[in-house]
């Protein structure tokens, strides 16, 4: 039934259910929905997301109670409605054709291949046709017969089956009641006809509202979706689409009465086939796109020796934060791309600079500091990434306005950029570097909190904290390094350069001559920086080259990019130290869509 409806919308929550269902139905027959080798490869190459991991636990008790309630409601409805059904005048062909259609839609919807495609709208269309064409009671019986086909799927647990069959029975009952109450037409012929459309539309509304309600409640009872989110999703996306699609059933009913049963059947099935095909293509292209972006970003990471897999993990972290903040699915997907691509611009920093000994001159510093702009230069032509441009451009800004490249402050920094900044810093701290071990998650979180307000947005830091705690409770702790495929070819080079990297890190921490000066005002908080790995007097923050707000104890310079190239004093420091006010700087900021030109 409508179990598949919610899974895309709440993939972090209902996805567990959907995933379970998909896995259950994958069974021996998964070959039916067999996919090409290419798609399979694409699917395999996707890293396992913390939220996507399979949960084989049983249905929670509350959900079982709910299923029992739905089942008893169905039994009650059957007891009221079925005895009054007039079986004498039933067109048996119609009865079984509709039951078979319902069964086929139901069973095929659980094929892995179709799991993403909408089976429900088509099922609503069939139910509308049944309600209109068959006498009261008979229609719901026919649908229930179709619903029993779910038993043909091996491995479907009994509670799931009960829920599906009850739902498939209760939905047309609601439709029948509405249609009967409004004295809907049965002949569907001329004198009654255009006027009889209204009851049909109301029946269609009932037929879409009931499953949305049943499944929505199920996900809420399951404890993973907030009721408000479920309602919003149903009203905004599911109901309009299902009502629109159910009109195919209306058309089919009229055609059936016009002695065109074959055409009527095809009208109900045809759009479903096209939609499924389109969804399949969509899913394939989407997987291909993701895989391609990942692979190419890995290729880019060849140059950046310390950050293997970093983009992936930043994407994962950003996604977790965004989900916790209740962002919409569409925006989350854009954020994910932005996060994966956030460091593409680093490629514009020549290897020569990344491996350079000694001090950097002004031009070199400038080159390093424009890497977000370069990143935007690359992705500018990808149309859908509109919101991502600004995220990539501003992911090194700080809340206090001392970041780069434009020195935006506070809320003026795009939200995506603030999210990526936190995820970026978090991953830098929790992954192993050649010159220091990875820090523990609590350590890193404490550090983030210490810098919230000055460097990071406190709301987002808190969201990261909560999202991680939630994932931990769910048994999916942050795994950090080593969970993602490493680009194999460059491994020897990486090892060879590890020692050099360690040396450079130490050296870089000492390159602080440019920005002498005491701790800046305001930002100097309690100095609760737990980690003092690279603490030394005069340490500066990587991004701003300003003396660290926590004095010489802060490890914040290790936040963003632990690779040596970024441990440099930046010209921005002089700008920040001068008397220029924040607003002045913001006025000079170029519009986000016309970023500064790069070298060329």
């Amino acid at each position: 039934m409508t179990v598949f409806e919610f899974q895309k919308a709440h993939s972090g929550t209902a996805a567990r259910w959907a995933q379970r269902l998909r896995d259950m139905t994958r069974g021996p027959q998964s070959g039916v929905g067999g996919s090409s080798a290419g798609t399979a490869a694409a699917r395999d190459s996707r890293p396992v997301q913390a939220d996507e991991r399979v949960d084989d636990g049983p249905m929670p008790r509350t959900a079982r109670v709910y299923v029992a309630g739905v089942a008893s409601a169905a039994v009650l409805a059957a007891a009221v409605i079925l005895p009054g059904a007039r079986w004498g005048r039933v067109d048996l062909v119609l009865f079984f054709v509709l039951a078979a259609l319902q069964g086929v839609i139901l069973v095929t919807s659980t094929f892995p291949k179709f799991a993403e495609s909408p089976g429900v709208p088509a099922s609503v269309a069939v139910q509308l046709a049944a309600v209109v064409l068959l006498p009261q009671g008979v229609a719901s019986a026919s649908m229930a017969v179709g619903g029993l086909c779910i038993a043909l799927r091996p491995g479907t647990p009994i509670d799931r089956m009960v829920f599906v069959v009850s739902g498939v029975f209760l939905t047309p009952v609601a439709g029948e009641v509405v249609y009967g109450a409004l004295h809907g037409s049965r002949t569907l012929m001329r004198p009654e006809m255009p006027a009889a459309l209204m009851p049909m539309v109301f029946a269609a509304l009932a037929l879409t509202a009931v499953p949305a309600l049943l499944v929505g409640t199920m996900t809420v009872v399951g404890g993973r979706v907030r009721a408000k989110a479920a309602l919003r999703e149903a009203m905004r996306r599911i109901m309009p689409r299902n009502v629109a699609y159910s009109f195919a059933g209306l058309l089919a009913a009229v055609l059936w009465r016009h002695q065109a049963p074959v055409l009527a059947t095809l009208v109900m099935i045809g759009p479903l086939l096209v939609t499924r095909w389109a969804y399949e293509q969509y899913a394939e292209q989407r997987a291909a796109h993701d895989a391609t972006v990942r692979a190419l970003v890995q290729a880019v990471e060849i140059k950046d020796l310390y950050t293997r897999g970093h983009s992936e993990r930043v994407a994962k972290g950003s996604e977790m934060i965004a989900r916790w903040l209740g962002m919409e699915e569409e925006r989350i997907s854009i954020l994910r791309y932005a996060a994966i691509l956030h460091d593409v611009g680093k490629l514009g920093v020549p290897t020569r600079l990344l491996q350079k000994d000694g001090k950097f001159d002004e031009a070199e510093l400038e080159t390093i500091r424009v890497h977000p702009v370069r990143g935007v230069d690359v992705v500018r032509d990808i149309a859908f990434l509109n919101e991502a441009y600004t995220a990539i451009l501003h992911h090194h800004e700080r809340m206090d306005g001392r970041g780069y490249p434009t020195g935006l402050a506070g809320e003026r920094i795009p939200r995506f950029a603030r999210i990526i900044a936190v995820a970026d810093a978090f991953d830098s701290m929790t992954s192993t570097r050649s010159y220091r071990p990875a820090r523990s998650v609590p350590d890193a979180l404490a550090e983030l909190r210490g810098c919230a307000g000055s460097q990071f947005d406190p709301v987002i830091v808190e969201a990261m904290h909560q999202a991680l705690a939630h994932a931990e409770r769910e048994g999916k702790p942050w795994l950090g390094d080593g969970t993602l495929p490493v680009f194999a070819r460059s491994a020897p080079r990486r090892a060879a350069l590890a020692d050099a990297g360690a040396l450079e890190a130490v050296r870089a921490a000492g390159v602080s001559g440019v920005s002498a000066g005491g701790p800046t005002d305001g930002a100097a908080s309690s100095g609760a920086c737990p980690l003092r790995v690279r603490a030394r007097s005069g340490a500066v923050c990587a991004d701003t080259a300003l003396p660290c707000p926590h004095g010489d104890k802060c490890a914040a310079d290790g936040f963003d990019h632990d690779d040596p190239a970024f441990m440099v004093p930046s010209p921005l420091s002089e700008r920040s130290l001068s008397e220029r006010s924040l607003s002045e700087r913001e006025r000079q900021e170029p519009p986000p869509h016309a970023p500064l030109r790069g070298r060329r």
Partner: protein
Amino acid sequence: MTGSSEHARLHLPLSAPTLLTSIALVVTGAALLETLLRGVAQPGVAAAFGVTIALGEAIRIALPLGRDSAPLSSTAALAFALSVAVNGQRTTYGAAEVIAVTGLAVLCGMAVQAYAGRHPRPGYLARRVLATGFAAVVFRDWILPGPASGLLDRHTMPASGALLAAVALAALFVDNLLVSVLARLEPGRAPLVDTGPSRRDPVGLTARPRPTARRMLLAFREDCMATAWVCPTVILFAVAIALTARSLGLWVLPIAAAPILVVQRSLRRYAQISATYQQTIRALSRVTELADYTEPGHARRVCHLALAIGRDISLPDTQLLDLEYAALLHDIGQLSLTDPIPGGATVLIARERAASVASLGADVVRQTGVLDRVADILECQWRPFSPQRADEPVLLAAAIIRAANAYDDLVGGALDPDRRLAALRRIRLGMATEYDPRVVESLTRIVESTQPYPG
């Protein structure tokens, strides 16, 4: 790709799409005139269908592989042509009214799309008007008064349904036929007829021109496959509307439009992700130039040139897509080099080095798991020409990229004609030993007839 549109290789006073569009405009104008002179038979019906067609046209989408598709509009137009009775009354309008209304509505919808900055492929109007016009003339002027009038009056269902479906199918075939004709006549595509004067053949190794009829047939089949999923639904709904309009009246239009819109939404998502994919690869092809491994714009210029060659020697659309991606990513292997090759010019380095760079690039692309054919092409791009295996798609694509890359390495974005000729001369010296002669011939033709692509 904009560059190649300047040269029309067909010796016609007008390009074919323009010609077909003019025909469509003339037909619409004539139909409009006739309708106005006779008076609109059923203004309400005409207006309702017209509005639906215009709406469907205004939300037209471009399916992957570049085909414009407006399912709602085609369905409504066909249903308009095929309706026998609306709300219990026999329809009295003729084919001229159908053509006039469809033409006007399509023009309105196209205006909306043009306002939003989306332009259809050339000749789109001709497709819509001529295909609908075909159905209208066949059905309204020939079948309805003639052979099948009795059948449709008694509305004996299976037969009349099948008849309507057959006419709708025929109309969509006409549409597909027009698509394939237009596609082959587009500038930059392989010409339908060989254009003797520009083809020179100093070595006697040029491409064997395929028979025109066969090429047409292949294109037609390709186009039918591309729409194999959408067309049946259009036919189904057109026939369903035509049949149920008798009892539902014009209400049938919004009722049938709703599910079609759901279908179209899913198609749009597919089209969007497909377009995004291409944009992403185009965008990421710039990382090599960003990292100073290649000259600015190199990947795009090579891609443009390779596609022009591919079209010139009639590669099918699917191979063109692989070729495009491979051309964009052909230098990605250089990212693995510690020191950039001077100017990124792989044409100037030793073959062993080129092979290793190519294989590094192929490895990167193979990582995606979905671009295996592209990776194969990249792997082969350093290989010299071998006549025995020249027709294998992978090797042919690799040969195209090799030649396009060599040309661009030698010329860059330069506009200097001497430099272009010198580069061509150098490449032609390697013809048949280094480069595939067909490709070099094609490259020569294209370079001689186009302005360089700015990148």
